[in-house]
């Protein structure tokens, strides 16, 4: 006991706040990669499943059933990393939860509901291939898709509340005395953020799955099966991209009106003015002046409110005291992340234009190898855009954990051992990520090499008596 008190505790006396931030950001950034697969893969599997039953298409059925097996793995990893997040809210931000849990928690109560449904039906769908009737089985997959959408909408509602903390009544000491649950859930930031995230889920999930089949096609596996896998996934993503641009534009305007400091960080605007340029790349130096980059005159003003055009005034960073806005370094992070998100979004938009144009003019997908190469790149790029978007949203809110109501350092735990858990979690998650990819690839290889199975052993096909092992 004295060993613990005299030796270990002093060693662990490290300021927990930066470590808590790093751990939260890292685990969230990891979890969010699995979310799109959880939300959108089930939809793609259902599309294939529907087609498979309707047109007695064996390739489509095979896709649906393999996808459902991959989903089992990504869903499980998504579930455990999500569970860690719910521990972390308390372990890292106990004061935040103690103070605001009564409001922030409300959307999670509904999220729990949807995750429950998702988990139950995913089990039924994945395990039901062999014995349920085809259409019955198909319908057991539909709740997964619906619950995925509502589940992520609920989580994002909680995050949006941190940006737009409405629906609470405070006493003079700042304690929550009354909560209006609908006001909390449907806070101002929620509709656009939720839409932007759900569409991002389809976009990212679609490109990630399409990436796998594009790789296979580049390696010469251009049979119908791979083509179908590519087409379903890429089409889902190609529908999502233009919608995502529109919603993102609306979201940017919401930020302009409601979180002017974040907007100033996004557009890197040190002082208030009109006719603000949209600066591509570049950064703030230690004096807070814009250095480098390519300015496009007046565009930021124009985009913020097209009705007033270049005369639109954009509030600068200096309108709030330095300790109530992101630091210069954080502004640089936000601005770079913004450039990445919008840049990648634009690139993906061009790629989908190519795809649609080819369908319109040639009634087929582009045949060029370069198209497939771009489609392979689109997978990781879409993930990058989504991560960047979250960094814009989260770092841009600094130093507030609850916008204008609670600062991050007042929210953090006082436990000085967080640096240890950060290291443990990082190692664990790296192992988890690598293993996930290895397992998925191993499954893929096994499918390709599985020659010993009988042709009759297909889903919905004539079955041998169940072999209970």
């Amino acid at each position: 006991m004295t060993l613990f008190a005299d030796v270990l505790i002093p060693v662990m006396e490290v300021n927990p706040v930066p470590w808590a931030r790093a751990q939260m950001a890292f685990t969230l950034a990891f979890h969010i990669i699995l979310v799109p697969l959880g939300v959108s893969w089930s939809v793609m599997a259902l599309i294939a499943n529907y087609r498979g039953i309707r047109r007695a298409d064996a390739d489509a059925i095979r896709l649906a059933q393999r996808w459902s097996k991959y989903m089992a793995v990504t869903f499980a990893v998504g579930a455990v990393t999500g569970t860690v997040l719910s521990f972390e809210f308390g372990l890292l931000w106990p004061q935040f939860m103690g103070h605001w849990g009564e409001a922030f928690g409300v959307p999670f109560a509904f999220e729990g509901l949807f995750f429950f449904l998702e988990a139950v039906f995913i089990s039924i769908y994945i395990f039901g291939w062999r014995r349920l009737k085809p259409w019955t089985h198909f319908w057991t997959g539909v709740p997964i898709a619906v619950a995925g959408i509502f589940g992520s909408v609920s989580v994002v509602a909680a995050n949006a509340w941190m940006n737009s903390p409405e629906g609470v009544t405070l006493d003079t000491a700042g304690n929550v005395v009354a909560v209006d649950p609908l006001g909390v859930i449907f806070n101002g930031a929620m509709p656009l953020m939720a839409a932007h995230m759900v569409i991002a889920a389809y976009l990212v999930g679609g490109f990630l799955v399409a990436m796998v089949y594009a790789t296979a096609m580049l390696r010469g596996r251009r049979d119908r099966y791979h083509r179908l896998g590519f087409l379903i996934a890429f089409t889902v993503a190609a529908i999502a991209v233009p919608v995502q641009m529109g919603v993102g534009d609306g979201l940017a305007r919401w930020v302009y009106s409601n979180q002017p400091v974040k907007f100033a960080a996004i557009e890197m605007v040190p002082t208030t003015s009109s006719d603000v340029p949209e600066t591509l790349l570049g950064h703030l130096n230690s004096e807070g002046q814009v250095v480098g980059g390519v300015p496009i005159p007046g565009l930021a003003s124009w985009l913020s409110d097209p009705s007033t055009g270049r005369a639109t005034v954009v509030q600068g960073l200096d309108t709030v005291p330095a300790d109530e806005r992101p630091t210069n370094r954080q502004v640089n992070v936000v601005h770079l992340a913004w450039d990445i998100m919008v840049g990648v979004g634009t690139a993906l938009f061009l790629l989908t234009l190519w795809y649609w144009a080819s369908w319109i003019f040639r009634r087929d997908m582009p045949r060029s190898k370069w198209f497939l190469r771009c489609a392979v790149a689109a997978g990781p790029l879409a993930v990058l855009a989504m991560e960047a978007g979250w960094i814009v949203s989260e770092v841009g809110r600094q130093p507030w954990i609850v916008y204008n109501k609670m600062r991050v350092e007042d929210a953090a735990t006082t436990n000085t051992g967080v640096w240890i858990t950060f290291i443990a979690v990082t190692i664990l998650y790296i192992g988890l990520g690598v293993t996930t990819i290895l397992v998925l690839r191993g499954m893929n290889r096994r499918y390709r090499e599985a020659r010993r199975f009988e042709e009759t052993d297909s889903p919905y096909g004539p079955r041998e008596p169940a072999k209970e092992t």
Partner: protein
Amino acid sequence: MDTAAALLLFAAITIYAIFGGADFGAGFWDLTAGGARRGERPREVIDHSIGPVWEANHVWLIFIFVVLWTCFSEAYASITLTMFVPLTVAALGIVLRGASFAFGKAVFRQRARRSFGAIFAVSSVLVPYSFGAIAGGIASGQVPAGGRAGDPLHSWVNPTSVVMGLLAVSVTAYVAAVLLTWDARRLSDEAMVGYFRVRAVAAGAVAGAVALVGLFVVRSEASYVFGGLTSRALPLVIISAVAGLGALFLLRGRPHRGGRLAAIAAAGALVLAWGVAQWDYLLPETLTVSAAAAPSGTITAVLVAAGLAVLLIVPAFILLYVLDQRGLLPEEGVDDEPDRGSGADRA
């Protein structure tokens, strides 16, 4: 209303302890099943029995957290501040367990399978122990109110915590063994029926002994809870003991459906007894349910969500269990056929 929210919380904890606990207990039997050859068959039964349901069972934990931090955020803040270490252990254990189980099913190579299996098994024991130790710390008043941290070490390394941790491990092992006996019977595997039956009796005996020792520890370390256990909660304690013995009795001869129910009742009554015994404290003798409760708007929202859950999730769960019990969810997907035309194109 505050009471309703607290009941919801305890109901969720009870269900998690039973169903999540049974999954953890199955991991315990996996851990103790012995070498690859000897343990092969028991492990198959275990895999078969928890395959389709584990993920859904595990969501109860999330639900517990959500109800706790939303309706009783002060208690949540105090618990997470004080119990930093065991909660971290539990979180990491859950990651390892869930991931290794999913991976283990997805890989075919024997060696990879075995290492995932080992991780799965060890973490299955670690997690219930941590939760038990946390419950013990709470019961013995180690968690202060007001969002302050208690002793970072003593709060979960103390006699009550140790006993509760061991109790959690042995009770989950017991419930799992009873359920596995039933599953083995469903698979018409008489050898495995006998195998798990012996283990159910052994785990039941250990759990009973730990519970008895626990009563003495609780008497000296957690007097408020002891008072509750010997008065308000006494009927539940008795139900738990009787059902626990009854389940073992019903396992003689051909395993009986009632045996499963009795084992579930034994575990459930035990958890409920703890809740009733420390009523109306969330954190015994420092924080009551009503003092910790959120404003009524929040509680209403959570109760509405819970009502919807009853409407939507209960039927879904029943569907899942019924399909599972009828053997309609035999395995993931189907055995696969090779891709066509893959002779020349393999990269």
